């Protein structure tokens, strides 16, 4: 009796896993699933919310004034930098028209989304955010934070979306080395990113900064992805492998930025 129960349970479970692995049933039924998991997730975030509440309510006035001052300084600095970026962009456009290259049309729109859930699973790295098709999100939409690229939307419902992080093993994106302009494919490896198949005599150093290349149709150009941490050469293999530390605060951020950077006509196409 016990054996029979065990075996039927195991078979049923294996069937469930394979169906979900193949067809992503749970991702598609996200609104329904959230209905069940939301109370538990909300309860588990209570301690954190409590500490935050205590922290915000018992901070001294001087500390707040100091922070305010610091933020104002930072804002001024940022305004300065944005101004120079605008000037550079104008110059770039002028130069491009001079050399008769295509002038890039920038029509970026951003929207701040709140992270409602961080999935703690070790083999699928996703977060859930509080924006859905209601706000115009689409599958394959890039998600950034203030430090760098977070990932792309992998499933979306009316008011919620799932974001696949760049460090997930099923994720890859085209990056560009700022120093050398070389391009690489960066695969997620569960903890960071990996550049596989780097030619042996390639000019790549630890500390190199990698940006999105803008060539993969998903991510906008020139956003920080990460820094090269370690380069390993295995004897007998023709290629080097480089570990990359993701720059975005993948497991700590509370807010992320959704970016619309393509024409609406293109957005209907497939994302991968």
């Amino acid at each position: 009796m016990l054996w029979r129960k065990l075996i039927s349970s195991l078979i049923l479970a294996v069937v469930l896993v394979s169906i979900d692995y193949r067809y992503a049933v749970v991702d598609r039924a996200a609104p329904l699933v959230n209905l069940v998991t939301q109370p538990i997730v909300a309860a588990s975030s209570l301690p954190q919310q409590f500490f935050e509440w205590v922290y915000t309510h018992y901070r001294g006035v001087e500390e707040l004034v100091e922070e305010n001052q610091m933020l104002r300084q930072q804002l001024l600095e940022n305004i300065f930098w944005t101004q120079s970026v605008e000037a550079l962009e104008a110059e770039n456009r002028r130069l491009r028209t001079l050399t008769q290259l295509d002038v890039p049309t920038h029509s970026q729109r951003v929207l701040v989304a709140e992270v409602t859930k961080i999935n703690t699973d070790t083999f699928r790295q996703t977060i859930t955010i509080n924006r859905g098709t209601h706000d115009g999100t689409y599958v394959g939409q890039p998600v950034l934070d203030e430090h760098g690229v977070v990932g792309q939307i992998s499933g979306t419902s009316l008011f919620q979306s799932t974001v696949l992080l760049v460090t997930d093993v099923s994720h890859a994106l085209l990056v560009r080395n700022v120093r050398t302009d070389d391009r690489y494919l960066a695969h997620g490896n569960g903890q960071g990113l990996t550049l596989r198949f780097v030619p042996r005599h390639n000019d790549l150093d630890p500390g190199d900064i990698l940006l999105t290349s803008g060539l993969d149709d998903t991510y906008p150009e020139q956003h920080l992805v990460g820094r090269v941490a370690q380069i390993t050469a295995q004897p007998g293999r023709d290629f080097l492998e480089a570990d990359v530390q993701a720059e975005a605060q993948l497991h700590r951020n509370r807010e992320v930025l959704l970016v619309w950077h393509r024409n609406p006509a293109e957005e209907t196409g497939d994302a991968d």
Partner: protein
Amino acid sequence: MRIESWRIYQALSLIAALTLSALPLPDSYAPWQPQWVVMTVIFWMSVRPEKTGFGMAWSAGLLSDLVVGSWIGIHVLSYCLIVFLCARFYRVLQLSSTLQKIFPVGLLLVLHMGYLHLFSIFLSNVDLGLLYWASLPASLLVWPVLHYLLSKISVGDPGGLTA
């Protein structure tokens, strides 16, 4: 049909365990998160081996899968196996004291985590490193406390106690 009060406690304790395991921790502490749900399942199997079983494994497993965000069925598989082992060798659990139970509990935890590790290798090829096993000592450390609290709960009803 009247629902016995310990069933309600059982459901509540499993939900509490799930909540604890979903607790967001800083990156450096996250691997030390104890396996709350597994230990709660083992506890109820040691106290009510004749009344609980695969129903508990399925509900706890499905909920864990949904909360954690893994493919549905992965935790179910492991919990079913644990419940089976507990039922098959329930005497070992029943006749040992809280501290002695650490050995079978540790064994089951190793099984559970090893199984999840295998899955992560097969399905997603993630290298978790040695830190993945940090959860095991953490679990064994909190086991006596968890056992004490849960037995407080399960003692309260007249349905006959095995402890």
